[in-house]
């Protein structure tokens, strides 16, 4: 069974509920690089509540991945 994919021309991320841990987590995979991140419930709730400005800051390519 293939996992659902959230995709656009800019990025491609597969999404799965992972039950390997002691409670359920969201497993996200960047299909372009294979990088995987798990998010637990409190982290997801936190992302929902990030204000748009903070989220925009995180999208700045020099913020993490291409910091130089």
């Amino acid at each position, binding site marked *: 069974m293939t996992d659902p994919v959230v995709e656009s021309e800019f990025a491609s991320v597969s999404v799965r509920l992972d039950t*390997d*841990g*002691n*409670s*359920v*987590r969201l497993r996200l995979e960047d299909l372009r690089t294979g990088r995987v991140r*798990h998010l*637990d*419930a*409190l*982290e997801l709730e936190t992302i929902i509540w990030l204000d748009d400005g903070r989220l925009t800051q995180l999208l700045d390519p020099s913020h993490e991945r291409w910091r130089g």
Partner: protein
Amino acid sequence: MTAVVQPAPVATGQSRYSQLIRPDQVHGSLYTDPTIFAEELQKIWHKTWVFVGHESEVPQPNDYVRKQLATQDVIMTRDRDGEVHLLINRCAHRGLQVCDDASGNSSSFRCPYHGWTYRNTGELLGYPYNKGYGGKNKLELGMGKVPRVASYQGFVFGSLAADGPSLEEHLGAAAGEIDRLVGLSPEGEVSLDAGWLRHRTRSNWKFLAENETDGYHPQFVHGSIFGVTGSPIGALYSDSSTAVTRNLGNGHSENDLRPEFRNFAEPLRWFGTTPDRVPQYVAAMQESYGDDAERRLIEGAPHVMIFPNLFIAEIQVFNIQPVAVGECVQYATAVQLAGAPEMNKRMVSQSIGSVGPAGMLLADDTEMYERNQRGVQMLDPEWLDVRRGLQRESIDENGFTIGAATDETGMRGFWQHYRTLMEAED
């Protein structure tokens, strides 16, 4: 009824515990006096290495489980980098219990009272409405931590004392018994993730610790399970047995049944089965250990009591934790051997039969523990006897004191170490 047996009068120049603990007798008040229990918490449970759980209970990063360390509710966590921590389940703000679920997966914990939030390493990462504290990161607070955490073959121990002997020093010769258990896995690894049963027991914890290597009682107390299952184990605990009871030092002791199993030389006799019933396991053992596989399969798993609270009983593990002078909890789980699915299924079903809610082994022992607690509150005679086999003890080739299969050598070793700890100056 919670009568306290009057302590024996203390003669001048002798410590309280050398009065209460003799080479061949121990005083009843050791099991009933709440002031002695309070001192045990300080000098044993909040100081020495105490078994808490197993790394396999937190297999994934950010997994956690709630565990008991004596009177303390602790959270065993695995952080993002894989390191295991023991946090004390108490908020640094106003002392609320932070985690309530028995287990979960979370990188951080948020206290439900005012929302203070901690990393799963215990560090405070933030609090709501931070202006009240002059901004972010203004508080040097965090959840309490068990200061020393160490593991051996995945068995996690905690010590509430910042200094003291290392875990290896504490385990001493008992470490070899854990190795023996792990050596029955073709991959050299065990896990304790089959789930723990929790048995509340109205008895002083020491009755359990002493009983675990008491080879004198099985024929009486466990007659019914031996009879129903046709187990050959009962016969190993008699005066004609070649098995030995060994004082391993530091309060640890074992019933070493290997001499008997070596005589029979039947692989898996210790487990009540034969190689043809678990062929893949036997093949995997031969693959991993070659010629030595046969010896391992003949000699079987250890029966060892590791002071003060870890009992490995061949196929299952007990975690004993005290609650009050007359109450403790026994947590029990089946051993699971990595790379041995055929064995693991059997270990779980055997454990259900022996220590499950309707199991026949632990229920029988527990009946004795609770009656023991009631009996010892009676005033006469004041002493319990621990002299069995004192006249026939000897020293084995490794320098350990050994007695016969039914002798109280293990108990005497327990009391020796107990006395050392209780008499130690702070």
